[in-house]
């Protein structure tokens, strides 16, 4: 089992109290699996992925355990985590287009980084050029400065750098959000290829765009206001979602070939509760079409069938 997370809680410290961004999450990612992590803005998915590699204030570790390759990952200990960064866990951050020092040549940035991890740029040069080919970058970029590349090229450069030492877990944080559709396709395919070539072992692909996950993810986990709501293989989530929230999410996606006049898009009315003082019980109950009194008690995450977990009292209650 590549990644195992048990009851993880990460809060944000603010003047008005703690924002419960990740509030009791448990899940597993298999070796070689690409897990999509989806949800609305503010549901905690970015917090989760960033906490797994760089937990610093205002993020606060509250409780929970993380195991990478069956070894405990000390995310709450900044110094101890250093040994795991880049080699064990790596990230393609949301700000990838600005993640490289503008006034340092790319080959120097790479060489500095490698040196501090005990590797030699010269020895790895050939492999680096191969990886560059994978992301459709010419090897000449190594002699350039990041400011001489476009945003997209910078992002792909970051993809290469982050995976240089073949990390066990790659966190891809909203890497397609700022791209046009064809670039989205190219980038998500690159991620799959990285996995297929064993450049990375497992991937957590964070996005709010389920249609992309449908193309690349093996399984999808849906989060809502800091809690897990459903987790299942991609086909199941898209074709047979069980949680009311997931159902509404999927049904609000446009379908190819169907015009608005035929079937207007449905949104989900209302807004998610704020994370400072989330309500008792199921957090979706105020927007849920099938909520009842039982929902004042928090539903546990239950494995309905192998590989499919849902947190809802009413599973099976909606027919769509």
């Amino acid at each position, binding site marked *: 089992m590549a990644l195992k997370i048990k009851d993880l809680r990460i809060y944000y410290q603010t003047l008005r109290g703690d924002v419960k961004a990740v509030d009791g999450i448990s899940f597993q990612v298999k070796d070689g699996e690409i897990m999509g992590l989806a949800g609305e803005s503010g549901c905690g998915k970015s917090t989760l992925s960033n906490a797994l590699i760089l937990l610093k204030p205002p993020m606060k570790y509250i409780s929970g355990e993380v195991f990478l390759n069956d070894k405990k990952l000390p995310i709450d200990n900044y110094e101890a985590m250093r040994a*795991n960064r880049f080699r064990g866990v790596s990230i393609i951050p949301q700000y990838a287009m600005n993640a490289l020092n503008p*006034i340092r040549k790319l080959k120097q940035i790479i060489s*500095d*980084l490698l040196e501090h991890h005990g590797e030699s740029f010269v020895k790895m040069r050939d492999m680096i050029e191969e990886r560059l080919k994978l992301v459709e970058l010419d090897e000449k970029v190594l002699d350039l400065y990041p400011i001489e590349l476009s945003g997209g090229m910078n992002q792909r450069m970051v993809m290469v750098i*982050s995976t240089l030492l073949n990390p066990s877990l790659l966190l891809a944080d909203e890497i397609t959000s700022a791209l046009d559709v064809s670039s989205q396709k190219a980038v998500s395919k690159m991620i799959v290829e990285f996995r297929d070539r064993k450049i990375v072992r497992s991937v957590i692909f964070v996005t709010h765009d389920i249609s992309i996950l449908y193309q690349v993810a093996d399984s999808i986990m849906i989060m809502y206001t800091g809690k897990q709501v459903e987790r299942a293989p991609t086909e199941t989530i898209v074709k047979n979602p069980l949680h009311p929230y997931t159902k509404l999410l999927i049904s609000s996606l446009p379908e190819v070939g169907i015009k608005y006049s035929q079937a207007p898009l449905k949104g989900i009315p209302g807004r998610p509760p704020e994370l400072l003082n989330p309500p008792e019980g199921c957090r979706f109950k105020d927007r849920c079409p099938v909520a009842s009194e039982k929902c004042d008690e928090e539903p546990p995450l239950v494995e309905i069938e192998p590989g499919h977990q849902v947190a809802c009292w009413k599973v099976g209650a909606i027919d769509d």
Partner: protein
Amino acid sequence: MGKYLRRKIIIYLLTFFFAVTIDWVIPRFMPGDPIRTLLSRAAMRTEAMDLLYNYYNKVFSLDLPLWKQYVNFWFSLFKGDLGTSVYLFPSPVFEVIKRAVPYDILLLVPAILLSWIAGNKFGAFAARKKRLDNTILPIWYVITATPYMWLGILLAWVFGVVLGIFPISGAYSFSMSPSLSWEFIWDYLKHWILPFGSLFIVQLGGWAIGMRNMIIYELESEYSRYMEAMGAPAKLIRKYAFRNAVLPQITGLALQLGVIVAGALATEVVFSYPGIGYLLLQGILNGDYFLIQGCFLFIILGVLIANFFIDIIYVIVDPRVRRGMSGETA
């Protein structure tokens, strides 16, 4: 890069033109008859008066058309003739200023360079440790708020009068004359240390504060965060931050030159240090038009050249300018 330097040169030429024009315009358009007013201010000396009168006639005369006066002004400049000093008659102004320049250079160049380097290092260091930062930052604010001449006064009082360690006037003792002997050099240094000290300390505060702010800004940048996430050691991240933060400090140096010149003038007055500042003051007090003018032009030229020098350094150091990327930062 070419575009950047060309633009700078144009600005400097225009600035010089502008400054020289102002230098002519102000006395010319003062209320009243400029020649008479200027003459009445000059210390009385017949030979000097004649010279002055001749010159003024060419440049400010109410009889000649305006444009001709202006052109005459430029002509005499290009002849390299800055006139004869009234205050130090009959020395030509050029000689007088030439004698003063080395003292200024020996005072200003070390003060500026050393305070810049030390201030940057200090500021970067403080940006790391929060506790140190909180205690030392107010101190820097205070020293940068200190008027140069007042610090000079303080140093003169404490070290010169109360403790009696250092002399507080002149560049060397009256009994000595400039030579390359150890004796003279030692004496010179004793006279040099206090004016140097006041220039050094006040500037140090400013650089330290600036660098500290820049380092904090760079440490919070996205590229720093990415390096952190990739397990880079703090030292590497700091090294990157420092290199990036130094660039605006270089620009800042160019911007500060005018202020530093002012400070040097005031400091020279406090210590009766024979630099251009001191000459300027004497010129003003004695109505020595030529001397004031000469000093002014010298100062302008010096600042422009120094600015250009710094611009070149900046081009070498910042790849963005070399590739024609950056807009005006300097």
